[in-house]
């Protein structure tokens, strides 16, 4: 098992957001997390990545035989956990090349591999740029500066392609994307699917899932997963909304 979350509870400013969440993910599986606003979807993504404004108050998270909650954000990243951000951050003056070369070499150092020099990195990056149909001058541009919403999201997927993580968490990567950008992002994700790599896809909408076709769909509500199923659950949600499932949950 790649990821095992048990009874995860987390708060921010003493407000409880996650209230005992359980989730198990095997290598190669794609899990979608859906749910209404404020259910805790982004909190889950942030807590797994180690954002320190959230306080974990209880629970265990095992990631690839490590106690995840014990690791710093950068250690988690180096061990293969990747978060595609809901709002990718701009870093003026820092080129994508420097940024990603530093990141790739950080991960390689962890794996005991030699660092890539500028030339090796260029070669390595070129293929991935083509994959996401990014502009060739991407590497020279500052990280996310002057990028459209769609470009920022694609840049995150590009970074994911470079870092080759074990677990990819996509936090509403589909929000704000037009249909062409959505398809590019979905293609990027699909091309990275493998028997070893797992995904958590946090989303509001079914449309990204139509491209990705997750193995499992979970409904997150009030800090817990209240229903899990296969891809068909996403269709059910699209047709009936969350109300029905929430009502069932509250009655139970």
């Amino acid at each position, binding site marked *: 098992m790649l990821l095992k979350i048990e009874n995860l509870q987390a708060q*921010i*400013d003493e*407000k409880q*957001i996650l209230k005992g969440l359980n989730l198990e993910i095997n290598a190669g599986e794609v899990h979608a997390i859906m749910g209404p*606003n*404020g259910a*805790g*979807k*982004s*909190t889950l993504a*942030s807590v797994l*990545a*180690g*954002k*320190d*404004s959230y306080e974990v108050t209880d629970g265990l998270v095992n990631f690839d035989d490590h106690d995840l909650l014990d690791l*710093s*954000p*950068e250690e*988690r*990243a*180096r061990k293969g956990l*990747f*978060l595609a*951000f*809901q709002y*990718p*951050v*701009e*870093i*003026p*003056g*820092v*080129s994508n090349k*420097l*940024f*990603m070369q*530093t*990141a790739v070499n*950080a*991960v390689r150092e*962890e794996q005991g591999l030699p660092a890539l020099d500028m030339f090796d990195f260029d070669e390595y990056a070129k293929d991935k740029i083509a994959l996401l149909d990014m502009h060739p001058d991407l590497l020279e541009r*500052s990280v996310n500066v002057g990028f459209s919403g769609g470009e920022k999201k694609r840049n995150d997927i590009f*970074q994911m392609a470079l*870092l080759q993580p074990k677990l990819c968490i996509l936090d*509403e990567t589909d929000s704000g994307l037009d249909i062409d950008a959505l398809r590019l992002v979905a293609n990027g994700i699909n091309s990275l699917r493998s028997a070893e790599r797992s995904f958590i896809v946090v989303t509001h909408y079914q449309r990204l899932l139509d491209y990705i076709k997750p193995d499992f769909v979970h409904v997150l509500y009030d800090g817990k997963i209240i229903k899990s199923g296969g891809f068909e659950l996403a269709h059910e949600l699209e047709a009936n909304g969350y109300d029905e499932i929430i009502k069932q949950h509250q009655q139970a």
Partner: protein
Amino acid sequence: MLDEKNITSSGSSETQYQEINDLLDKNQHYKEGFFTSTHVETFEKGLNEAVVRAISAKKNEPEWMLAFRLKAFKHWQTLDEPHWAKAEYTPLDYQDYSYYSAPTCGSCDTEEGSGSEQEIDPEVAKAFAELGVPIMGEDANIAVDAIFDSVSVSTNKREDLSKLGIIFCSFSEAVQDYPELVQKYMGTVVPYHDNYFAALNSAVASDGTFVYIPENVHCPIDLSTYFRINEAKTGQFERTILVADKGSYVSYLEGCSAPVRDTYQLHAAVVEVIVMDDAEVKYSTVQNWYSGTDDGEGGILNFVTKRGICEGKNAKLSWTQAETGSAITWKYPSCILKGDNSIGEFYSVALTNRRQQADTGTKMIHIGKNTRSTIISKGISAGFSDNTYRGMVKILPSAEGARNFTQCDSMLIGDQCGAHTFPYIEVENATAQVEHEATTSRIGEDQLFYCKQRGIREEDAISMIVNGFCKEVFSELPLEFAQEAEELLAISLEGSVG
């Protein structure tokens, strides 16, 4: 998701920057903070007319130089210490400083005030070697004037340069050997009565560098001066004059450092640059004076007057500075654009951390027609520091078609520091175009988290972001200097490099 987002951004504002501040609070590795123990001759503390005369006598100065000093001293006594800068310091006790200190080497003859390459005190030579300053001429691409406290101890490559007619020597030597040139230019750009510290400097000027580039000579190597304050309670008052005659070019660099001391040390320099028709001067500074302790104890007070004049048409003067040291910096390298079509540039990175205070900027005075000036200023404040940009762009009625572009960016690291901007613009000619852009940003938790989530260590992320912010200015520095500046920034920021 909206409510979650709100919660995040309104999050624990007090602890939000704790981690960054902790990181920055680690003791700075000020590797230049060592002290050289050697035989020195240091004047008793105190300042009066007798001291001014004694300094002049020590240097065997001609009568006109002594007269200049005394005139300045008299004027200085009528002035009040300025406190208008955005920097707090208790008024200095000028009687508690020594105004002359020089290494005396038992076996060498330093009577002349400055040694040649053979005569340098071995302890002093060791100090410069440790600082990586090539005083023995070991670096082919640079000529160095090394100044230790009050005197120039070595100036190399002089003979090679003199074949081209270039004069590169210490200020004291210039007074002896080129009195007519010194008299012609000294005080023409920064008069002795210009301001409090310029007056003080004019009275007690210790040593400095004198550069003259003759007509149509392109100086083939960089000229540089390295300033070292060693003795405690000593002020350094260097006087530098740089003259670029018609059609010439020179790139001049200066660096500096001082031992760690628990009391303020005063550095009040005056630099005058004169650029004739079609000549170009690039003046670069990497300032790394000791900045004091975490509690703001000690450090160098860097009160400097630097000014150049583009005397002739098409002259160009470019100031580039990377200011990372000093407890307090008070410095406005300026350009008087007198010649038609002359160009003034100011590129600055000022980093303050801990309790440092910097009030720096420039003045661009447009007099000639079609004169142009560019100001790019990057201020970075961290810790409990204050960083101020103060700049003036003045377009006189004669400056038909003058243009200025100013970009002034501030970056805050943490939430205990300050960034301030005081731009003054005075336009007296309607054909002038003046542009001013300013931004303030903060290295946010979000940026750092983004980097960390990609596996990048926090200190690497901070230095990457800061260097990115400064890139425009560093690209103006000569290559090796740019590297040094980047490293200094990294050291000043991380406190834990190497």
